């Protein structure tokens, strides 16, 4: 019976009333094997994974067949599920911070997972908790066991989650987007840890992700889901090398190439943006406390028509820099010149607005929910009196057409649009005043992969047609490299490396840039062996 699959789904359906979230999925997962479930948001991949652990929402109607270790689990009583969960199936979720009980010490949370499945003396449980914490590479297990979740960094929290999932020694680990919320270097460390643990313990792993590049490095087999169905499944190498389904091909092609770059124009003209010795200091509390130097002495220039990519991990100060450039944050020291003008001058504000515009990461938040698209697009036209009142609607329709939307969208409200459409509206609004420089603060990181590729392509086309300069901020090196001629790397408020995009991506000089590039999940990772695991101690 050793070839009985650990998990076998046959014709699995999850419905919410009339809505079908998962439809006719058949999958098998063998012991010691890693299966990746890939798809975009709404594809049903997370729901499939949750229902395998019996954690589908109570409103969900399940049908089909789910066999775990040969036993049919559809309609099984809750007590049977409880024995499986934690005991045979461990789970790791996307948001480690929210997934840990904020009011309970970490050691107690792990001990609880062991005690639920093994009748062991207290001392033995405590020993296993510490052993588990050191197995996932956490320094000072004793200290960590006594800590509360909020005292740990995001990467450490995810390590705790993994230790907790493996505490009762399960045969299957379900990892639902375990690295999506993490910085790139931390993501690489967690992936390496998961691969190592899987090999050592002979675990089976169900790895759910939206990111093909991540999946390729870790899974033997992959199943691509779309709209509740598995459109293609097979060995990873085969699916990646020769996708049979057009959707898989689209997904694979959505990793941006370098085609979006524009040959450089005249670099001797007045720079579009010139930042010199910029520093921005925040005070965390009214009563004082340590001052936070979010941006700490940054100088950079962008030539007209040039695209500069700014990469860095969370807290590196890249967003603050962007907000300072458009005047949302007052710099503590240093100068900013937009086409040679000082935006801080009393008359500079409106002039600068015509030259420099911004696209925000959170498209939904940057559009007023009470206004229709045509009202949103009319606002900049009205502020700068760019056209007569009667023509605003036509103008708005032209802007929409430029970003690939139809005039029918003019009367919709933001919540009636998809994420990608919202970001297109935000781009159209920024273009309304015909700016010369566009600041994009992580414009695609909240979007699905295929939508990301579309929005990036849109930005590339607009740049070409309008001769726009671009300050493109992101944490995804690949996306930033696709649209930028030059890349600046930020860390702790400083620019640690700046240079031509290809040079930074392929021959980084500083050790931090090297670490970033090494951590970048790339489709070439499999040829060059498993993902390198940098030092685990400090994440």
């Amino acid at each position: 019976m050793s070839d009985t699959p650990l998990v076998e789904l046959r014709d699995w359906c999850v419905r919410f009333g009339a809505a079908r979230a998962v439809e006719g999925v058949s999958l098998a997962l063998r012991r010691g094997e890693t299966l990746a479930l890939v798809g975009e948001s709404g594809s049903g991949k997370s729901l499939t994974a949750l229902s395998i652990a019996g954690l589908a929402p109570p409103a969900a109607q399940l049908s089909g067949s789910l066999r775990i270790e040969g036993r049919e689990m559809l309609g099984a009583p809750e007590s049977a599920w409880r024995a499986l969960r934690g005991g045979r199936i461990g789970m790791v979720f996307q948001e480690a911070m929210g997934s840990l009980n904020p009011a309970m010490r970490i050691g107690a949370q792990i001990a609880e997972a062991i005690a639920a499945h093994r009748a062991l003396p207290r001392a033995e449980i405590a020993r296993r908790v510490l052993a588990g914490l050191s197995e996932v590479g956490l320094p000072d297990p004793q200290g960590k066991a006594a800590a509360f979740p909020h005292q740990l960094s995001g990467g450490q929290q995810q390590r705790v989650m993994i230790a907790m999932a493996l505490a009762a020694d399960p045969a299957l680990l379900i990892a639902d987007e375990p690295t999506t919320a993490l910085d790139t270097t931390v993501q690489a460390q967690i992936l390496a840890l998961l691969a190592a643990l899987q090999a050592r313990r002979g675990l089976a792993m169900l790895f759910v992700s939206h990111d093909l590049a991540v999946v390729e490095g870790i899974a033997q087999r992959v199943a691509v889901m779309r709209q509740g169905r598995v459109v293609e499944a097979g060995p990873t190498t085969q699916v990646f090398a020769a996708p049979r389904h057009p959707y898989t091909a689209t997904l694979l092609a959505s990793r941006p190439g370098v085609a979006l770059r524009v040959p450089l124009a005249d670099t001797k003209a007045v720079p579009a943006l010139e930042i010199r010795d910029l520093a921005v200091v925040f005070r965390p509390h009214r009563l004082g406390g340590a001052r936070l130097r979010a941006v700490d002495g940054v100088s950079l220039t962008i030539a007209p028509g040039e695209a500069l990519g700014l990469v860095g991990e969370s807290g590196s100060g890249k967003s603050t820099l962007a907000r300072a450039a458009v005047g949302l944050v007052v710099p503590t020291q240093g100068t900013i010149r937009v086409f040679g003008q000082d935006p801080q001058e009393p008359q500079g504000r409106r002039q600068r607005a015509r030259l420099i515009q911004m696209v925000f990461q959170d498209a939904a938040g940057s559009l007023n929910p009470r206004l229709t698209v045509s009202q949103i697009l009319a606002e900049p036209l009205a502020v700068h009196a760019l056209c007569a009142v009667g023509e605003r609607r036509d103008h708005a329709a032209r802007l929409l057409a430029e970003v690939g939307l139809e005039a029918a969208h003019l009367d919709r409200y933001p919540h009636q649009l998809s994420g990608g459409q919202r970001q297109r509206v935000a781009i159209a609004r920024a273009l309304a005043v015909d700016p010369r420089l566009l600041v994009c603060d992580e414009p695609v990181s909240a979007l699905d992969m295929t939508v990301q590729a579309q929005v990036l392509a849109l930005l590339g086309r607009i740049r070409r047609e309008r001769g726009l300069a671009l300050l493109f901020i992101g944490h995804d090196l690949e996306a930033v490299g696709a649209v930028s001629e030059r890349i600046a790397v930020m860390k702790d408020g400083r620019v640690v490396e700046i240079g031509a995009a290809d040079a930074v991506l392929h021959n980084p000089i500083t050790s931090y840039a090297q670490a970033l590039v090494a951590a970048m999940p790339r489709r070439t990772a499999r040829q060059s062996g498993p993902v390198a695991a940098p030092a685990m101690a400090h994440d």
Partner: protein
Amino acid sequence: MNVALQAGLSLARQALLLAGIAIIVFLLIRVVPGDVVDSMALEGSLDDEAIAVLRAELGLDADALTQFRLWAMRALIGDFGTSMRFDRPVAELILASLPTTLALAAMALTAGLALGIGLASAAVLWPRSILPTLVEGLNLWSIALPTFCVGLAAILVFSVWLGWLPVIGQWLSPVVILGLDIGGQVAKPLFEDLKETSTAAHIRTARAKGLSPTRIVLRHLLPNALTTVVALGGLILAGMIGGALTMEVLFGLPGLGTLAFQAISGRDYPVIQAVVLVFAAGVVVVNGLADLIQRTLDPRLRG
């Protein structure tokens, strides 16, 4: 910041608030046209000379600042002056009334919290039963029915029409009425909070660990939701004061409410001042305690 420092800061803040309230109360009562002496003079029992003497005796002829300083310093050592109506020290009157009010508040609060927490927890455990509707109903009850309207109705029904023993009613009715009111206020937000917490990611983790439902509710749900109740504590007490005052008068309980009632109708300002201040101090203290308990319950607030 450590816990002790935070507790100290919180204490200092509460003390500052109390001082501010004392000033406000003092100033408000002082701007009243006419003082005790005037109202006594109106009744014709004093001549001009006696008025002046009495004023000097009570310190009413000094300027506002001096008066406040004197009053505040006396109040600090528990001397709130002398009630003109009862001809007894105000502190004595307050001390005599305080136990009744404290007992009423404690009983009502215990009953209300037990009802609210119990009902909310039960409603979360059995969401398909009648219990969630009961939570809604109790909440509407406490919004729509002012406690003293219910009190009047209870007197009419039980004491007047049914002729039941008023002695039992004297304590039972106010406690039940206030308890229902508090229960309605607690149950709804707690129920909502429990419902929200039960969909939280860490509860999903607890289920993924294979824990039993009872353990999840007791160890993971309730402790996190109890901060809600504690945060509500001070506000519930503040909201209860109006009800408690009228309940005492309606049911003839000799507490602070009855004292305030008599003092207001007799324009006995020292007593009014003292009663208001005692209530305010109670609320400030409870708020401070609630803040402290919350910090111990939620490690994230300890910073």
